[in-house]
């Protein structure tokens, strides 16, 4: 039996409120994702979606529990090893894309490679061509439409041959028609690149496209509490 790509056990994460009290945001007993699998996680605003993805990406550290990604227990790794693992194993598509404004589309994708497999201009170009932006290589984010920016973010997420792509409300800023196209593109490209996809969304249209959909309200025992967590820690 193939071992899971991602395995979460007894995961907990809390944040300090301004009054000093700690608010539990994530409390997930178990979750697993197989290599190449595509899973959607349903979660409403404040349910801890982004926090979960940040924990899996090693951006946040769990208070408790284990996250094993590609055979490596994140809790046992130093910060720089986690950074390295994130760069080489994970592609991240943010809801607001988080493209670097001073860089062209091509450079944004190359930046994704900078910390992982190393800069491969031809691959960056090929990825942008694959997402339909071959004619916009040297455009800066501000010169691109929202949909085009999203496609650059997808190309960047796949730049380092990741085993897992995390997508945080990737269609949240798109209209319905573009959202459908974008989702199809993400799923298709992940499949082509043999990358698993863990997508979080609250959009029923998006969720309906997946065979496996997990409900964060059920998965995360702290989901109800998280909704009341302070806005300053709005990484939930």
């Amino acid at each position: 039996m193939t071992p899971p790509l991602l395995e979460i056990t007894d995961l907990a994460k809390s944040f300090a409120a301004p009054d000093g009290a700690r608010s539990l945001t994530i409390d997930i007993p178990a979750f697993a994702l197989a290599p190449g699998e595509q899973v959607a996680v349903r979660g409403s605003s404040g349910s801890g979606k982004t926090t979960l993805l940040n924990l899996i990406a090693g951006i946040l550290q769990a208070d408790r529990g284990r996250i094993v990604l590609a055979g490596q227990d994140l809790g046992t790794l130093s910060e720089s090893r986690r950074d390295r693992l994130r760069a080489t194993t994970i592609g991240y598509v943010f809801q607001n894309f988080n493209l670097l404004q001073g860089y062209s589309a091509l450079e944004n994708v190359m930046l994704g490679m900078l910390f992982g497999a190393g800069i491969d201009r031809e691959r960056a170009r090929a990825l942008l061509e694959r997402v339909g932006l071959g004619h916009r290589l040297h455009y800066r984010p501000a010169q691109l439409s929202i949909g085009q920016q999203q496609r650059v973010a997808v190309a960047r997420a796949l730049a380092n041959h990741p085993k897992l792509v995390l997508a945080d409300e990737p269609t949240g800023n798109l209209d319905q028609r573009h959202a459908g196209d974008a989702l199809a593109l993400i799923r298709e490209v992940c499949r082509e690149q043999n990358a698993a996809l863990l997508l979080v969304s609250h959009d029923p249209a998006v969720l309906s496209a997946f065979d496996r959909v997990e409900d964060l309200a059920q998965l995360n025992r702290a989901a109800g509490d998280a909704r009341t967590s302070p806005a300053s820690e709005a990484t939930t």
Partner: protein
Amino acid sequence: MTGFGLMLLVRRSLRQHALSSVVTCVSVALAAGLTMAVFAINRQTYDAFTGGEAGFDAVLGARGSQLQLVLNTVFHLETSPGNIPWTMYEEIAANPRVELAIPYAVGDNYRGYRIVGTLPEIFTKFQYRTGKTFQVKPGGRIFTMASHDAVVGEYAARKLGLKVGDTFRPYHGLAVDPKTQHKDEFTVVGVLEPTNSPSDRVIWIPIEGIYRMSGHVLRGTGQIYRPIPGEDIPPAAREVSAVMLKFSNPAAGFALDQQINKQGKVATLAWPVAQVMAELFDRIGWVSRILAMVAYLVVVVAAGSVLASIYNTMNERRREFAILRALGARRATVFAAIVLEATTITTVGALVGFLVYGAILAAAFYIVREQTGIVLDAFRFDPALVLTPLGIAAVGALAGLVPAFKAYRTDVASNLTPSS
């Protein structure tokens, strides 16, 4: 991550903040140029004025300040401390310890350029620098003793527009006052090749020409003697302002110093010439130290501007750092990028500083040449030309540590725009 990757980040950041980067670069360039210029000019001036490899060993003159004597005879600055009798020149010239003695008689000028009365040996035997004698440009010749000939230094000839065949009438003293212009007319018979020394600013005439200049009197005997045209001037009546001396051996200096300075009461032997000038520089060494301090302060201010210019961008760049971190950049990478950015600004600034250095040097060279005739060497290597850029790059890197530490501490999750 490769150095290329870091440079990509740095280059783009510099381009994004082009105005502040350029302004900071310019301030670093000014600091670097000023620092290099202060040290290089100071060292070159010191070397130029302390003689280096002068072709003569000492100057004999009237009792008084050795420094004044050297400034007057070697650098043609200051006033003459007075005269000594011709007989003293004859005595020292006959001394077996002295290989060469050339008398100078000074006290006149032509439109600000000093006139020195001397012997023709100044052109044939005297070495203004070891192994270097004055050379007359083609078409000219040296003067003869009993004549109204003049040989003009290259710089003076150029500035005065004098050429072979031209005539001029000297002014008495060091000022240009029509009331003090002598009636005697001198003819330029030669122009010297440039020597890049104070001698380039001098007009040389026969010493007899000085003695017989209208209005001049001689006091060699203690009594006033007015030279009579057609008659020899008695040696006892003659005077000289100074005697340039070359010793036959190094020990001669000690013996003559003892004899003239320690035991004698009439004359002063400025020896060694380099040491006399070195003492001057030692005395005014505080000026150099203040200039160096100003240069260091400017470097500190430039480092502060590097720090401020990068630090001010930190808030707007927190999200950029968070994105880079989310893409897998380590804290150390972000830290290194900021330090490299600061180092790049200061290094580019230090390199541009060579232009500033060149400009300051050009101005300093012009002034030194104009005032003294000494030509400094623009291409002479000075340790400051290496140490200053290196030091400034290091200071820049240090200045980058503060914003780099801020970037290092950027929290990724809270600086990625909240999304859900």
